[in-house]
């Protein structure tokens, strides 16, 4: 079986339609509504908004495709690297456990889609998450996937969990809460393996953390995920700390999101 697959090689059935990151970011509609008005990173998921149920449906579908890609990413990490000092058997075992979790999340997401009236493939799929899982260095890949991607998952699941609470939707709240707990574990695994594999290689650890910064900034999506009052997806500080992020690391992600937002603002001026 081939090793180191590219995102373009991911298998999907005819229900799925893919949109590239370039297409998403080059959408000319991402401009201020009126001359001089401030760009907003996107609508917040607040029940009092008329369109909130549809926004929740769209976000749930994005979570579903994200779970497929997380499964594919963890699965590839099990396969792409030989057992050795760089990727011990125990690391692969953790990735296999993560595959099990992600497969369960895919099934939960499909059922949540049914619950919310969403069809599989109803929205375009962006594969930026899997792209972060293509790094040929296992340490960098693990950092990109388990700390950046799964960290984003913590923020998104917490946003959806809060929406479920606010709308008194017991199914959504319960499912998101359980998936959130798994994501905290996945981030913690990433943090632990990063520390262990780079214990005697500070230069490699620095490169891995730099890669994580790049991915975290990309995943901030022009401020869509951030720490501002109007951020559609907020940094879930408490859950990130439970997952092993230090307060300084969370603050750094917050800062990266502010940078991403400033750059997106500058691009549409």
């Amino acid at each position, binding site marked *: 079986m081939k090793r180191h697959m590219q995102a373009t090689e991911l298998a999907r059935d005819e229900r799925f339609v893919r949109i590239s990151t370039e297409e998403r970011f080059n959408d000319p509609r991402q401009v201020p509504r009126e001359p001089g008005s401030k760009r907003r990173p996107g609508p917040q998921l607040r029940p009092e908004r*008329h369109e909130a149920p*549809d926004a929740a449906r769209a976000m749930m579908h994005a979570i579903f495709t994200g779970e497929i890609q997380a499964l594919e990413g963890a699965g590839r990490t099990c396969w792409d690297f030989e057992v050795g000092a760089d990727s011990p058997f125990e690391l692969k075992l953790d990735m296999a456990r993560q595959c099990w979790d992600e497969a369960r999340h895919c099934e939960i997401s499909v059922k949540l889609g049914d619950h*919310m009236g969403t069809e599989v493939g109803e929205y375009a799929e962006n594969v930026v998450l899997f792209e972060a899982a293509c790094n040929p260095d296992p340490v960098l890949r693990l950092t990109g996937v388990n700390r950046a991607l799964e960290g984003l998952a913590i923020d998104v699941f917490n946003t959806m969990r809060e929406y479920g609470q606010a709308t008194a939707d017991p199914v959504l709240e319960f499912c998101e809460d359980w998936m959130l707990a798994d994501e905290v574990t996945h981030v913690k695994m990433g943090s632990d393996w990063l520390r262990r594999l780079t214990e005697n290689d500070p230069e490699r650890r620095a490169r891995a953390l730099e890669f994580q910064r790049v991915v975290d900034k990309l995943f901030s999506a022009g401020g869509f995920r951030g720490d501002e009052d109007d951020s559609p997806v907020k940094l879930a500080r408490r859950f990130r700390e439970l997952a092993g992020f230090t307060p300084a690391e969370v603050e750094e992600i917050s800062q990266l999101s502010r940078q991403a937002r400033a750059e997106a603002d500058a691009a549409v001026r």
Partner: protein
Amino acid sequence: MAAVVVTPEAFTLVQFDAGRIAELVAEVAGRVGLPADVEVRVEIDERVPLGRSRLTSLDPITIAVQGGAFENAKVPRTLSDRSVVDVVGRLLFRAVDRLDPAFADAPADEALTLPQHTAWDAYAVGRCERVGYAPSKPRRLYHFRNRHGFTDTADRVFERLWSADGLTWADLDAACAETAATRP
């Protein structure tokens, strides 16, 4: 067939065809029972990728939508016939209701609560299905539960509204009171 005016006539940020939209709207207007001499205006804000849609006037009947409301979610910035029909069918049935004396007591749209909006939408979209369109019932049920509660009572009321004909504003208001009484 109703006269339909779509603005803008040409789009620069999205690949929408005003002629196609007018054709679809005219067909929907006929199916919901609007008189052939009525004028329907559709104002599209193509700058906004979000999906807000509103009935802003009855004379002439005017629908204002953000561009995302007519968009194909699988292929962003392109037109979806199904989205156009979904949005316009729901709002034109509301227009038909508002022109009926049985809805004379209904508050203006801006004054409707979210449960009232959603109850009216369930009633309108159910009728869209019966005039031959294929709206997503599970999607409307989810909207309804968001506003009326995830309860057996809410589901029962939704089914009643979805399959109803000839309701009055008082019926819709009573449906909202019924779900409110059992909301946690």
